């Protein structure tokens, strides 16, 4: 059985004696990274101390948060980027390498990314919120540009020429007039330089990009199509056992009594009891689950509500816990002056992220240090969870993240990491814990369910002059908008959620936006205006208007008439510094009310696009995922159980559900970069609902949308 390659990383490189900090010098830092030139990629306040960060890092101490990444030019010509971001299919391994290759410049295959290793990469808050392209990419780009400047200065000094006469290309500094060239590797040789990025570093304008902005295939893609890549759930160590956990049959049930004797008697089985955690480890997962089934446990159930009561619970517990997110003008006055007032309530079910790779983790203890490989979006967050659960200092917990089988906001936490670490400690050997699909549905967290109360006032000429929005439980992502509503109150209510809930792709924007953009459509019809014209009439935002027009034009908006069986709809969205407008074409089966989406046109503006093919791939993915939440996905629960905790009962989109997708990448060159893996999901559901209304006159106000005939 193979030892995972990642274990070959220098596990023992960090001293665990924290008193050694004072005696650390840069030598230790470079003994970790190898000789060469290293740039500290600073975030936040400029002027922070790269050297201090390096010393703390070398000593195994957590670095100050000002250092976001290291970029290291090795003596061997390899450029290594150390970043706490992780890869879950959003292809940032590729886009970040493109950013560095653009500025240095050098061949993409000379760039290596070390990602999400809490001992080797600087602290990072997590891979979520579309922050990688917004923050990490420009930071790395600046560092790479600074490295290029420094290498040019070094070469200029060596040759006694003006640095301005030099060029950098393909891993070399070139002096065209004398045809001299020197490799970055040779310039880095023998140096142990730690550099900060000078303030005056200049980067290339997106219009001059030659590597960024291009559709480069997924770096390392071959490992995935051959099955060679090892996800956390695939890792093995010598002497490793598979661990499974005894779970309560219902939420909150208390263990009254347990008998593990039969399990203990089985060959090769280790039963671990650590506080309230009871687990079974065995050489195969099959044997571990057989042993688990032999455990007799009695549980005391506690009352738990059902999904039938959900809306009532969210309203009741949230009504008094209201926060104002945005307030402009005089809402009440404007409402009283409005020509037409309109109110409506919307709801949205809990949904599950359903990453195809369920949570898993492998843990091993060596001399009091626990090392955990797991799939998470927050390696340092999981490290902190482990430190708390195991009462260990920072230096004794290492978390490493192999490229992960997706997350979509659903893998922010370290459940399996903690379970594997506790079982490994109890069993005295490495343990791999891999959740089943049912465990993932039941014990992970959901995208919050939501309730929305909306009220608006229209003026004579079709302007929204009053806007009153109350969202319950869902959070504030996407609760703001890009319309010119002069008088408004946007409020969020914190409710008690019956189910465990957490982050999601674009968070609650998926549902806040559903409520808003459906309601906007209602208002457009009330004002007897075309939904496109109504939106344009109510927004002056240049970028949003451009998306509205681009999507409508590509779609052929208004060029054909909707029928009860074939219709079209539109919705827009603003979140995560990006704008999108989606137009959908749907069909409706008259006998069953089955809604099928056949074509989607999405105009998306997230600033300059780093990798168009991967951007379109992400958009298609969000059409698919958005479609699931719009039409099928809904977590049901009753008597303390998820009643559809299986893929046979929880419908996700499949091949046949996938519409034709056309992307219009707005790609404005003078706007700042923004992430692209979240925003486009938020306008799918309302666009479909609006199309259903146009076809049938029925307004669907619950996600997932069901048309009963």
């Amino acid at each position, binding site marked *: 059985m193979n030892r995972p390659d990642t274990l070959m990383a220098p596990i023992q490189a960090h001293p665990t004696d924290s008193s050694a900090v004072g005696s650390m010098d840069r030598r230790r830092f470079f003994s970790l990274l190898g000789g060469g030139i290293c740039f500290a990629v600073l975030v936040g306040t400029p002027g922070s101390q790269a050297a201090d960060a390096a010393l703390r890092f070398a000593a195994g101490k957590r670095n100050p948060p000002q250092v976001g990444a290291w970029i290291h030019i090795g003596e061997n010509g390899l450029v290594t980027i150390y970043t706490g971001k992780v890869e879950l*299919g959003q292809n940032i391994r590729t886009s970040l390498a493109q950013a560095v290759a653009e500025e240095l410049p050098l061949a993409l295959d000379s760039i290596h990314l070390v990602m999400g290793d809490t001992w080797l990469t600087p602290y990072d808050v997590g891979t979520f919120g579309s922050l990688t392209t917004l923050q990490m990419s420009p930071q790395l780009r600046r560092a790479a540009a600074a490295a290029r400047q420094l290498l040019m200065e070094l070469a200029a000094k060596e040759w006694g020429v003006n640095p301005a006469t030099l060029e950098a290309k393909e891993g070399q500094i070139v002096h065209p007039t004398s045809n001299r060239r020197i490799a970055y590797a040779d310039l880095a040789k023998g140096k142990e330089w730690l550099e900060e990025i000078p303030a005056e570093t200049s980067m290339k304008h997106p219009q001059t990009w030659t590597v960024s902005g291009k559709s480069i295939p997924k770096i390392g893609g071959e490992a995935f199509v051959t099955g060679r890549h090892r996800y956390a759930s695939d890792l093995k160590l010598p002497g490793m056992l598979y661990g499974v956990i005894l779970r309560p049959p219902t939420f909150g049930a208390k263990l009254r009594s347990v008998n593990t004797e039969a399990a203990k008697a089985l060959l090769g089985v280790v039963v671990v009891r650590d506080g309230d955690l009871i687990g079974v480890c065995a050489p195969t997962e099959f044997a571990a689950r057989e042993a688990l089934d032999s455990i007799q446990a009695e549980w005391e159930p506690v009352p738990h509500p059902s999904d039938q009561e959900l809306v009532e619970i969210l309203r009741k517990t949230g009504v008094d816990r209201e926060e104002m997110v945005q307030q402009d003008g005089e809402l009440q006055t404007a409402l009283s002056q409005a020509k037409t007032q309109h109110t409506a309530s919307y709801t949205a079910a809990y949904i599950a992220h359903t990453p195809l790779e369920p949570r898993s983790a492998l843990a091993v203890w060596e001399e009091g240090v626990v090392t955990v490989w797991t799939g998470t979006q927050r390696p340092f967050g999981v490290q902190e969870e482990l430190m708390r659960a195991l009462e260990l200092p920072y230096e004794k917990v290492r978390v490493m993240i192999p490229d992960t089988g997706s997350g979509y906001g659903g893998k922010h936490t370290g459940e399996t990491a903690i379970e594997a670490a506790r079982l490994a400690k109890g069993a005295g050997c490495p343990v791999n814990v891999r959740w089943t699909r049912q465990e993932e549905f039941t014990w992970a967290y959901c995208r919050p369910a939501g309730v929305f109360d909306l009220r608006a006032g229209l003026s004579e000429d079709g302007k929204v002059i009053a806007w009153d929005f109350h969202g319950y439980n869902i959070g504030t992502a996407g609760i703001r908008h890009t319309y010119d509503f002069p008088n408004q109150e946007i409020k969020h209510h914190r409710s008690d959620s019956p189910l465990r809930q957490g982050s999601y792709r674009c968070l609650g924007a998926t549902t806040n936006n559903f409520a808003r953009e459906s309601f906007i459509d209602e208002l457009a019809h009330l004002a007897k205006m075309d939904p496109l014209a109504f939106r344009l009439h109510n927004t002056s935002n240049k970028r949003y208007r451009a998306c509205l027009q681009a999507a409508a034009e590509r779609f052929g908006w208004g060029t054909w008439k909707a029928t009860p069986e074939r219709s079209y709809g539109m919705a827009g969205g603003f979140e995560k510094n990006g704008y999108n407008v989606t137009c959908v074409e749907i069909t409706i089966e008259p006998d069953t009310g089955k809604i099928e989406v056949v074509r989607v046109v999405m105009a998306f503006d997230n600033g300059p696009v780093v990798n168009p093919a991967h951007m379109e791939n992400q958009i298609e993915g969000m059409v698919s995922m958005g479609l699931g939440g719009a039409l099928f996905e809904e977590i049901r629960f009753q008597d303390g159980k998820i009643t559809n905790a299986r893929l046979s009962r929880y419908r996700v989109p499949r*091949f046949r559900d996938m519409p034709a997708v056309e992307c219009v990448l707005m790609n404005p060159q003078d706007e700042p970069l923004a992430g692209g893996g979240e925003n486009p999901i938020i306008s799918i559901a309302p666009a479909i609902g609006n199309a259903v209304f146009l076809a049938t006159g029925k307004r669907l106000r619950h996600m997932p949308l069901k048309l009963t005939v």
Partner: protein
Amino acid sequence: MDTVTINVNGKSYAVPAKPDRPLLGILRDELDLTGTKYGCGEGQCGSCTVLVDGQPRKSCMLRLGSVQGQAITTIEGLSQDEALHPVQKAFLEADALQCGYCTPGMILTGVALLKENPNPTREEIIDAMQGNICRCGTYNRIVTAIQTAAGMEVK
């Protein structure tokens, strides 16, 4: 303990296990062929697809004893002499993956389809692939990849 002999990727393995165990766990945990993935354990997602005598089968639903004497191909056995299979190449070209977790199952299902039907229509591809889930939503690209691999002109 029972021993069951199975043939995987041209090699014969005597597996000391009960014949009623699912093939998936044997491949992943005993033979270390981890390219075959667990996704649901009830034949719904296709991540565990392997070829049994050329037919795509969900290995989470196959009992070990039922595949004795049959030729099992996993993703590890697809490419020969380090050269990628045309379907693997086409997946890379079409960018038909994001996280890659469903990819081995998708590729093997596509390989089986093309063997049976070298020139499938788009509809036929969708029919054949309907049992496989890509949660990242690269469905349209996977269809394109299979069309490309078939040497069909992609519309």
